[in-house]
């Protein structure tokens, strides 16, 4: 159930595409800065809506960071052992992040304040963004038309799907929500957003989402 996941899932495809178009390092750094700024604002939240909005922006930042981090590994490391090793380290760090998050989350909320759960991202994000500029090579920009309508329908479709799945989860009261009209509508609607996109893409010179959602 969350604002973060909806924004993250919805914008993931667009984030990866933006990296292809505008240069991966540039977009990667932009994602890091957006994520850090949203974390800072979220930490100062005085009410739930403020926090919700900040989390949604964080989700957008995350959606830009994740696909471009993976793409940067494949462009930075030559195929074969170096890339395999890099992928291994990357996956280990991702897994480690989950473990550290559990521990640190408990420690921070118990001994400091939940606000620090958001603030911790700020120094990490800023340091990584600064280092990325120095250490990573920029990938070439590929000018070309962006299929705006395809991007909007694709993003909306995935966001609705994530929303529907989040809502369908059984609540703390033990009630399952799979039959709710809102859930069914948001799960069914993406089919409508994906289909027109496929039809149009037969004519589009460039696939926005070459992997396809069908």
């Amino acid at each position, binding site marked *: *159930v*969350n*604002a*973060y*996941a909806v924004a993250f899932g919805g914008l993931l495809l667009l984030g990866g595409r933006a990296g292809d178009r505008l240069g991966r390092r540039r977009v*990667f750094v932009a994602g*890091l800065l957006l*994520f850090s700024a949203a*974390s800072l604002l*979220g930490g100062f*939240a*005085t*009410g*739930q809506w403020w*926090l*919700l909005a*900040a*989390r949604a922006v964080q989700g957008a930042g*995350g959606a830009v*960071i*994740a696909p471009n*981090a993976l793409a*940067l*590994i494949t*462009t*930075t*490391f*030559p195929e074969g052992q*170096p890339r395999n090793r*890099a992928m291994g*380290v*990357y996956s280990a*760090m*991702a*897994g*480690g*992040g*989950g473990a*550290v*998050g*559990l521990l*640190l*989350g*408990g420690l*921070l*909320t118990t001994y400091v304040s*939940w606000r620090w*759960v*958001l603030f*911790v*991202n700020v120094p*990490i*994000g800023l340091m*990584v963004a600064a*280092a*990325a500029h120095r*250490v*990573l*090579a920029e*990938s070439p920009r590929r000018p070309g038309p962006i299929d705006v309508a395809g991007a909007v329908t694709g993003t909306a479709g995935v966001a609705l799907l994530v929303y529907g799945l989040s809502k369908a989860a059984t609540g703390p009261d033990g009630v399952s929500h799979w039959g709710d009209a809102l859930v069914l509508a948001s799960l069914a609607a993406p089919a409508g957003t994906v289909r027109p996109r496929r039809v149009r893409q037969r004519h589009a010179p460039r696939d926005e989402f070459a992997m396809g959602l069908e």
Partner: protein
Amino acid sequence: MGSSALTVSLIGMGLVDEARVMVSPVVLGDGKSLFRTAAERVSLTARSSRLGLALVVIASAQLMVVLDATIVNVALPHVQRAPGFRGAAWSG
């Protein structure tokens, strides 16, 4: 530093102390080899490469995103106890 021909002449005259080669893995096609026209082999030793640092940067970014997701989930019950944050479950 100049063309590859100039580079090779300088290497041949023993004027090069250090070569910095930047590799961009997306360049395709063919062209002149960097050192092929050198008359004799000059042995070089690799001093540094930034691949390790690059990996640290990329992996740290991913670490931050994953860390954030779990850390916020752990903290949510606390957040919801704060006044004005009862509906914060949706911010997970």
